[in-house]
């Protein structure tokens, strides 16, 4: 058994960390929220680095990497609240996988896609998109769209309402691919959430070591210490699940539906807990606009509803587990 990242994946993570920490930040997330400043690092930089095209085959100009490779990068993006989301890149790469025209354009960033959910509603990364993918009567379609921007809770997610115009059929029978794209998207969303939760935990731990109350660093109080430990346990649990689920995408596809739902649900819960702990550990300061804590909190409050909510995800986990046991 070797349930661990490879050396190449660790190098990839380090390179991603370098890029994202210089190209994005909670400060940029605050500016997007405050003044509508562009989301960082933005579509172009994500395409130029090749990170957004990791899972696209080399023949189409992508990285030819695995979902696990992408997950490793997505974790780093999540740590600094980067946008647009690699979730969108990953889903589009699956949806356009046999499209010889559109896939290269996705890979080199000349087309900026977003994916409209089957049930409608807010579209992730819509505010930076010019093309949209959707499922219509079982067919996968692509087209332009009209965007209605709305007051965001977390501006980095680029959410907007979208009406699809002029759709062309990409694949007549798109349902299976659509499902897989959604599941891969859930895994990548979980990987971003892992990074966000993990960074939130670190910020909380750092503050708990510095801040003194009643003559002791507050991290020495069990109320603070144990809350941070619970967040830590959650983060480590989530990390295992993200790695496994990403691995199943290529290596054990029959397990992907359950693994993706488990990651989706668990990431929602773990990230929300970590972000709330971050705010609470900081006391008053964590509750101010200028502090980064609320930006992690905002990401948590929004992410839990993306690509289905946690309640739906856990229902799916249970249904699949029960079906498996009843066999």
């Amino acid at each position, binding site marked *: 058994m070797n349930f661990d990242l490879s050396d190449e994946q660790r190098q990839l993570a380090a390179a991603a960390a370098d890029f994202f920490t210089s190209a994005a930040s909670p400060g940029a997330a605050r500016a997007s929220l405050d003044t509508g400043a562009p989301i960082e690092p933005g579509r172009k930089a994500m395409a130029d680095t090749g990170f957004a095209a990791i899972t696209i085959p080399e023949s189409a100009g992508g990285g030819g990497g695995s979902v696990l490779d992408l997950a490793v990068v997505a974790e780093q993006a999540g740590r600094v609240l980067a946008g647009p989301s690699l979730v969108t890149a990953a889903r589009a790469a699956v949806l356009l996988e046999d499209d010889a025209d559109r896939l290269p354009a996705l890979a080199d960033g000349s087309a900026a896609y977003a994916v409209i959910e089957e049930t*409608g*509603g*807010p579209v992730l990364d819509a505010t930076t998109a010019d093309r949209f993918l959707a499922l219509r009567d079982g067919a996968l379609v692509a087209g332009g769209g009209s965007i209605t921007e*709305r*007051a*965001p*809770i*977390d501006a980095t*997610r680029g*959410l907007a309402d979208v009406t699809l115009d002029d759709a062309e059929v990409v694949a007549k029978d798109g349902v299976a691919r659509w499902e897989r794209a959604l599941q891969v998207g859930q895994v990548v969303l979980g990987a971003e959430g892992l990074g966000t939760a993990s960074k939130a935990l670190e910020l909380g731990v750092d503050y708990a*070591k*510095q*801040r*003194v*109350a*009643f*003559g*002791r*660093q507050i991290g020495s*109080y069990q*109320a*603070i210490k144990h809350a941070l430990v619970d967040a830590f346990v959650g983060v480590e649990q989530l990390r295992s699940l993200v790695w496994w689920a990403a691995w199943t995408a290529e290596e054990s596809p029959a397990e992907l539906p359950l693994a993706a739902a488990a990651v989706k649900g668990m990431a929602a819960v773990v990230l929300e807990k970590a972000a*709330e702990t971050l*705010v*609470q550990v900081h*006391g*008053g*300061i*964590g*509750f*101010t*606009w*200028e*502090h980064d*804590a*609320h930006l992690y*909190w905002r990401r948590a*409050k*929004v992410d839990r*509803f*993306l690509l289905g*909510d946690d*309640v739906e995800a856990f229902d799916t986990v249970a249904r699949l587990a029960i079906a498996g046991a009843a066999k």
Partner: protein
Amino acid sequence: MDFDDTPEEAAYRAKVRDYIAAHRGELMSVSEGGRRAVDLDAAKQHQSLMYDGGLVGVTWPKEYGGQGGTQMQQAIVNQEVAKAGLAGFIGVIGLGMCGPTVIAHGSDDQKSRYLGRLLRGEDVWCQLFSEPASGSDLAALRTKAVKTDSGSWRVNGQKVWTTLAHVSDYGILLARTDPDVAKHRGLTMFVVDMHAPGVTVRPLRQMSGVAEFNEVFFDDVEIPDEERLGEVGDGWRVALTTLMSERLSLGGGGTDVGTGLDAAAAHVAKRIGELPETRQALVRQEFGRQYAASLATRYTGYRQLSAISKGAMPGPEASAGKLAGTKTGRALADLGVRLLGDEAVYAITAEGDGRWQNSQAGLPGMAIAGGTDEILRNVLGERVLGLPPEPRADKGMSFNDSLRIGASE
């Protein structure tokens, strides 16, 4: 057991209700008072008119312009004000905290200069205690007051979380006058003129985007020794009066935290039908739990009110209500947001409703402001259950020495 007024309470309530009804047109409504930029003059007039009806300073002694009434009468006024949808008082901090502190520790001169104007809403007051480096551990504050050769005090430092500072005329200021003794012993309380040179007020924006509080900076602010409240070095004891008055002015009573139980029920009733049957069951399960918990908090508040009406002082038990109320308030806000469905990821719904999102963003602060959940649990554990306190690492240390703790990090 009953939930009705005694005959005396009923008579008082009728009097209050009549006065409010008679002046309803001139009084400010809660929606006007709730606006971010309050019309200061209107707010002052509102309080003045209420004062004329005997509805301000209900429990204050008559000699200082109050009504000499009971805590229960104050609770009745609060209920009727809420029922009529009237705005709260711009003097809320002054009436609940600063005034009682001046009454208990002020000089005759201070009492005569300040209390009447405070009651009538002519001056607005704020309370300058919390600092960036001293939240839960209030006595660790660093704002310094140094005695000058002329006998006055020169103040330097920063306060934070100061409600109403941006419209205040005066504040009560807790400052360190001796750093070489234990932290509780080196403090002194002052009345500070908020218009004095060197006082700077900066609104403090919260994570919800709203600025309900302020930061206040003191740069060489001069305070005459006559504006000292209590003895030099006695500031901690004076501050305890203030904090006790705060508890009295909050007073329990089972009011809802957050958006309110009835609003939540209406929201659930309106939205639940949009969901599939199985999902409705999940919503009902969560809502039922929170509804029951909210009722329990409400009736626990009524138990406290009943005790107050028999003359009891609100004790630390009131913290149980805040803990429980914050918890259900958060859970109801979360439920409210979730019920918005697709709209839950935006700050405002298509219909223009942002109540649930605002509540979601505001309630983490409830678990922090006015005593964090952790501090309240310590207080309840130690003062109500009688459990032993934490060991204190800074016990017996001078304030200056205690500053070194954690400094090696």
